[in-house]
């Protein structure tokens, strides 16, 4: 008997006429590993919540969800609470207890497990997960990644059959995300736990899932192996859907279109399935390149052909420089290590700079230093003129919204800026007043038009998707007319399409002369969209280079596209680069 079967499920939220789930049917056997993907707002989360009793959203529903052949609501509550586990998106909020020990026991306590059994189950789970080092800690001391692992472990103590995960890694950095995925694969392989998850990091998940469901607009479009779903996505006419395709199959697909087709070779191009692993695409790509491309002299030709490659391209001189960081040092404690250690960096007008680096490299601290929230221990942040406005968007855009509608927030900031046109500037212990450029009437309307946020301004900020919320927050900051816009992890929790929209917005701002600085874990985003990239390591900026030069030097800390194509095109770091190079070198027949 199937573990789970969803039969003709339709659903609309209470008070809304729009159906969020449209006639969804599928069956899940024991031990499957299923990824549910789709653009934001396609109904993925709503679907997952229908499978978890007690989290089912309120609204009108038809059809049913059966667990082992019996409808979910006819099972005893305690049984389904234990057998169907759910991990939510945000690691901060799904932790209930103050100590890891209590957190692990919480579920078992709730369903009335005898005390001696609780301790034994907790001990077993801690040993299996290898989290002895966390067991005696307070939950507030854990990192985001550790919290998600503890949350997973605390579900595991209840011995579930089925684990539902709603974007479990969207708030995590790539390393923490990968250790969570490894754990899931292990649980699936070794314990036979069935997993259904939604996720935006499709590049990482496609290779480990065994079945991928594609949803759009509440419909289940495709439900097949990762290879076949990838092919379906690749064939799609819809741009938003196409953005979902991971880089490796995308290169396979796009390059295939460029290869002159001869009848004997058509059987090689499999329309129904696409390879999804880098290790599959890489040798294919190298073979195809050897066969179809004229690669003579590629290595000598390259630097001349693309002047964006020279390392000095990012170091502009003269009037363009608006902020100069000079030998910055910063530490939190007297005895502590330097978080920022002798860091020097120039920021130029109209530049889109991405600062990449691992956990604890000091990325957020650097932004807080630039924005003036923190003062450097030694060294200086020199502005090119005193009234220079720097705006900083913290990791959580929630920290900006104070009203029930986005438009009220925008108006509040606008009114404030108008009523306080003077800016206090501290310079050698005396503060001077500087006048801001006067905001014209109707500038708010123009801004909203420019950002295309007309559709969301009437909504409550918390009803927005992650991408929309990011956009609304940027809009608030733009009212203050910043010369420099600092963004802390702007792509956190965003799907590929929202990232693209955000990048377009930021690029447009750069063209108007704003200097945009993002710090991010997301090297794909940095490589694809920014003018310059800098790697922050051990409190220092190692180099500031164009992304093509920085990432093409790297062997592992680099993009998937570069990993696939590095032996053929040394300098290609994005899918677009690979395709452009291919076109440039293909033999004209």
């Amino acid at each position, binding site marked *: 008997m199937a573990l789970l079967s969803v039969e003709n499920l339709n659903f609309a939220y209470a008070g809304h006429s729009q159906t969020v789930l449209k006639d969804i049917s599928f069956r899940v056997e024991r031990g499957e590993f299923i990824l549910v993907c789709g653009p934001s707002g396609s109904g993925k989360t709503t679907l997952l919540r229908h499978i978890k009793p007690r989290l089912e959203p309120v609204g009108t529903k038809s059809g049913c969800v059966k667990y082992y052949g019996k409808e979910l609501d006819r099972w005893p509550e305690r049984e389904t*609470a234990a057998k169907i586990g759910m991990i939510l998106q945000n690691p901060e909020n*799904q932790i*209930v207890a103050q100590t890891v020990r209590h957190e692990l026991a919480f*579920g078992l306590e709730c369903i*009335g497990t005898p*005390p001696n059994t609780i301790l034994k189950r907790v001990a077993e789970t801690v040993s299996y997960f290898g989290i002895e080092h966390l067991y005696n800690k307070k939950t507030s001391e854990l990192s985001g990644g550790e919290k998600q692992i503890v949350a997973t472990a605390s579900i595991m103590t209840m011995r579930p059959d089925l684990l539902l995960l709603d974007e479990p890694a969207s708030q995590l950095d790539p390393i923490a995300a990968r250790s969570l995925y490894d754990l899931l694969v292990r649980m699936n392989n070794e314990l036979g736990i069935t997993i259904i998850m939604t996720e935006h990091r499709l590049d990482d998940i496609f290779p480990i899932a065994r079945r991928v469901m594609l949803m759009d607009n509440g419909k289940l479009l495709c439900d097949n192996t990762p290879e076949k779903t990838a092919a379906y996505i690749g064939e799609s006419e819809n741009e938003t859907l196409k953005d979902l395709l991971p880089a490796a199959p995308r290169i396979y697909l796009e390059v295939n279109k460029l290869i002159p087709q001869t009848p004997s070779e058509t059987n090689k191009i499999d329309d129904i399935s696409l390879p999804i692993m880098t290790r599959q695409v890489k040798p294919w790509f190298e073979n195809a390149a050897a066969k179809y491309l004229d690669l003579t002299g590629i290595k000598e030709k390259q630097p001349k052909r693309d002047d964006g490659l020279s390392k000095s391209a990012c170091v502009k001189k003269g009037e363009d420089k608006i902020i100069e960081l000079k030998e910055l040092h910063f530490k939190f404690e007297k005895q502590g290590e330097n978080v920022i250690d002798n860091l020097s960096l120039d920021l130029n007008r109209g530049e889109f700079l991405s600062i990449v680096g691992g956990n604890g490299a000091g990325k957020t601290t650097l932004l807080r230093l630039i924005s*003036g929230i923190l003062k450097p221990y030694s060294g200086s942040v020199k502005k090119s003129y005193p009234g220079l406005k720097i705006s900083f968007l913290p*990791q959580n855009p929630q*920290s*900006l919204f104070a009203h029930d509608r986005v438009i009220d927030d925008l108006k509040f900031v606008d009114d404030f800026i108008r009523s306080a046109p003077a800016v206090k500037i501290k310079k050698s212990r005396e503060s001077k007043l500087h006048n801001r450029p006067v905001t014209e009437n109707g500038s708010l309307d123009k801004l909203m038009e420019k950002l295309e946020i007309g559709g969301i301004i009437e909504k409550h900020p918390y009803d927005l998707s992650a991408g929309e919320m990011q956009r609304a927050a940027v809009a608030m900051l733009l009212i203050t007319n910043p010369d420099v816009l600092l963004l802390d992890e702007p792509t956190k929790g965003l799907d590929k399409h929202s990232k693209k929209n955000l990048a377009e917005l930021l690029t447009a701002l750069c063209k108007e002369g704003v200097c945009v600085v993002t710090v991010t874990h997301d090297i794909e985003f940095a490589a694809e969209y920014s003018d310059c990239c800098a790697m922050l390591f051990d409190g220092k900026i190692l180099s500031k280079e164009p992304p093509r030069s920085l990432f093409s030097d790297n062997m592992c800390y680099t993009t998937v596209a570069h990993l696939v194509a590095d032996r053929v095109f040394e300098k290609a770091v994005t899918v677009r680069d690979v395709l452009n190079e291919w076109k440039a070198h293909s033999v004209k027949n």
Partner: protein
Amino acid sequence: MKFSLQLAHPAVTFVLFMSVAGMTIISFHPVNIALSLFFSLVSVIIFNGKKGLKLAVFFCVPLMAITVFLNTFFNNNGVTFLFSVGNLQIMLEGLIYGLCSAGAIAATVMWFSCYSAVMSSEKFLYLFGRAAPSAALLVSLTLEQSNLMRQKLKLIDDGQHSLYGDAEKSLAQKLRLALNKVTVLLSWVMEDSIITADAMNARGFGTGKMTKMRPYIWRFADKTFFITLFVFITLCVASFFKGTIRFDFFPLLDELKPAAAEIVTYIIFFVFYSLPLLAELKEALKWRSYQSKI
């Protein structure tokens, strides 16, 4: 550093500190209070280190000064005239009473500081969680939430700094912005607590009676310590009812008459207040002799 009282069963730690603090307040006897004050001071320095010393010097001393001042100047129930300041007559009884209350308050504060050094809120919840699991959980969630709120406030400050930080503000605007921050925090916290509620529901919270994991067991050492403690509490309470540790301040101060019964009582109290230190001392000695063997 781990204290042996941290490893003890929470019930032992709880009863120990509650009883020493309680006994300090129950009996307003100068000797009792002097003993309690002395041992609480030593304990707070042992358990809390520099922080304990700071608490004693910068919090307890000013608190004592105020208490002594108020009692000396405004409590004129006594009869032994010392001197007068303006219209105020200063009495010996008021001064002594002030000194004793100051000592009692300071000692209680320091005992509670020791308590919090060895007793986490989780242990407290463990003790009372079985009787009232939902109330205990509520306390735990609230404590956790205050932690998260502090982190959120930092992020909110960052965001607000970008929007309004460098502008010249009027007082009304400053107030408005402060209110703004509170609104941001509240809506954020509310939104997040919905997710916490989901996470709890998902794990079967509210499906019926809860049980409680028992991570602490009664060791032999806990039992013997608890019995010792119990004996001393009984002796202390008995001497209180017998009147050997009672003292009247008003209208005229009692005399301290150190008869045999009183001296025995003082010794009992001396040992009683030193129990937290003895527990640590025993552990230290044991470790020392153990170390010399290996």
